[in-house]
């Protein structure tokens, strides 16, 4: 299916409930438009533009699968991000960042175990020291407390 046709369908699917919701916000009068007036206008324009794309999409410029995809790596990468978000506050910045970096370096980028562990450890410790200790950014500490006096 053509990219533009998909985009048109998405636009119509999004715009329809938006238009209905906007109606409920209150459209108001032309003299004093309500909160729904503007979203309703956008939704209507989207319905028109979306329909044009569904009916008359431009051909795709980029042929499908023109170069080799690395889907497995993409999946692992995504999983490591979900893991990071889910566990950041429980495990703390240092551990989560270190593990995320390790997965990226070793599994996604295929670096050796040695350099992966070294870079992951260095990067997470240095960023913690710079941002948490020096710049006083609030980062969760989780399981590993800062050494006393920091």
């Amino acid at each position, binding site marked *: 299916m053509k*990219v*533009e046709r998909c*985009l048109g369908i998405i*636009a119509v699917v*999004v715009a329809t409930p*938006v238009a209905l*919701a906007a109606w409920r*916000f*209150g459209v108001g*009068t*032309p*003299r*004093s*438009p*309500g*909160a*729904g007036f*503007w*979203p309703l206008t956008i*939704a209507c*324009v*989207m319905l028109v*533009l979306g329909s*044009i*794309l569904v009916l008359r999409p*431009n051909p*795709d*410029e*980029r042929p499908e699968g023109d*170069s080799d*995809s*690395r889907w497995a*790596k*993409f999946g692992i*990468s*995504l999983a490591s*991000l979900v893991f*990071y*978000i889910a566990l*950041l*506050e429980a495990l703390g*910045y240092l551990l989560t*960042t270190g593990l*995320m*970096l390790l997965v990226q*370096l070793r599994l*996604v*980028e*295929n*670096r050796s175990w040695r350099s992966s562990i070294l*870079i*992951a450890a260095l*990067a*997470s410790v240095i*960023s913690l020291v710079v*941002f948490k200790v020096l*710049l006083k*950014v*609030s*980062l969760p500490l989780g399981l590993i407390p800062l050494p006393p006096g920091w």
Partner: protein
Amino acid sequence: METLNLLLQGFALALTPANLIAVFIGAFIGTVIGVLPGLGPTATIALLLPITIGMEMVTALIVMAGIYYGAMYGGSITSILVNIPGEAASVVTCIDGYKMARKGRAGPALGMSAIGSFIGGTVSVVAVMLISPFLAETALKFGAPEMFALLFFAFVCIGGLTGKSRVQGLLMACFGLLLGTVGTDEIQGVDRFIFGTLYLQDGVGLIPLAMGLFGLGEVLYNIEKRQSVGEVLSTPKGLMPTLKDWKDSAWPIIRGSFLGFGIGIIPGGMPAIASLMSYAVEKKVSKHPEEFGEGTIEGVAGPETANNAATAGGFVPLLTLGIPTNSVLALILASMMMHGVTPGPLMLIKWADVFWGVIASMYIGNIVCLILNLPLIGLFVRMLKVPYSILSPLIIMFILLGSYAVAGNVSDLVATLVFGLIGYLMKRFDIESAPLILAFVLGPMLENNLSKALLMSRTGDPLFFFSRPISATLISLAFVVLAFPLLQWAWRALVRPGVAAIKPR
């Protein structure tokens, strides 16, 4: 005389140690990310947004501007030596620049692009300085109807110019407008599209949006499809162009400066468009167009001048009207708003020091860039050899750290991931993201001015916009831009055959 005085005050501000360091850092980071393919100024500024919040307003602006024009300098290095554009605006430089390098003329190609960039950048800053006060003064007389008309015109240009197709561009802009309506409505206090969450009450955050769309989306795309940097041609010894090169490049550089500035001030006029147009113009006016594509210096000097001129040109509408013309400037605008500055005609009155400080910093920054790109060029060429396998995980770390640190809120991370996936898909399917971010930033202003204007009209009659000369002109122009394909079609289908028939054979 007054301008000179203000400029001197600007220099006084730009030459304070903190700001001087900011100029240098901005120009340096800009050149680095310009050199690195797959990492452009939009992604970099998105990444740095959380950090700029903590800076002085002027300093933040100076750094961001430096990254923007620095990237234009750096981009040409990769184009010439590797035949991969380091940055979108250097795509055309690959054509003749790489051919020149293959012929052993990498030196003059690199030297001339740095010199052209410097001239284009500097000429353009002079123009910004001279035009902005005049434009701001005119814009001061604008009421809500004029402001709405101006924003509407900008919106139509952005949607029409930046997308692959006009309909697609406008549709992406609509998505941006819609995202801009999320949250508690300013005028009525109604919660719109918050899905029962507290998080969305303040609206969609610009930082998760920008970090996701431009930062994470880009990285994810590069993980799926890695473009390997091939052979890097060695850095040449002599960078100085020959006398003939100077003669050949003089006019392309002059034309490129003005063309670039002109494109830069149009909404939707990105540096990439300026360099493409300059290449086309040079090829057209050249006495030997057949040499274009074979390694002619005009094909490098013109476009590289034009893209730098365009970067400075974009600051005119941004600082005097509050209208960003591309995604980099949209992020700069957003950062200014986070600092409590609303760019617009009042900027030159209320924040005159900021305005003149930034202008002065751009003069200094162009000199810094020239030094970085001529004597120190070897340093940046070596950066091309920094492996992506280290860079990419570290960028991810910074994106996550930055989006979390702003509010210490995991919801921001979730939002970043969601927008990252959307950004990845858009990149994957070649859908332009600039209209989306621009509309997201402009949307609330558009709605606000529309409501005010309708209130002013007393009757709510849309024809009210046509009763005022400036808004009437701008809205009519917008409709002309919208109807342009239709007019084109009508011309081709109806008028041209008629004209051809009348012509005597």
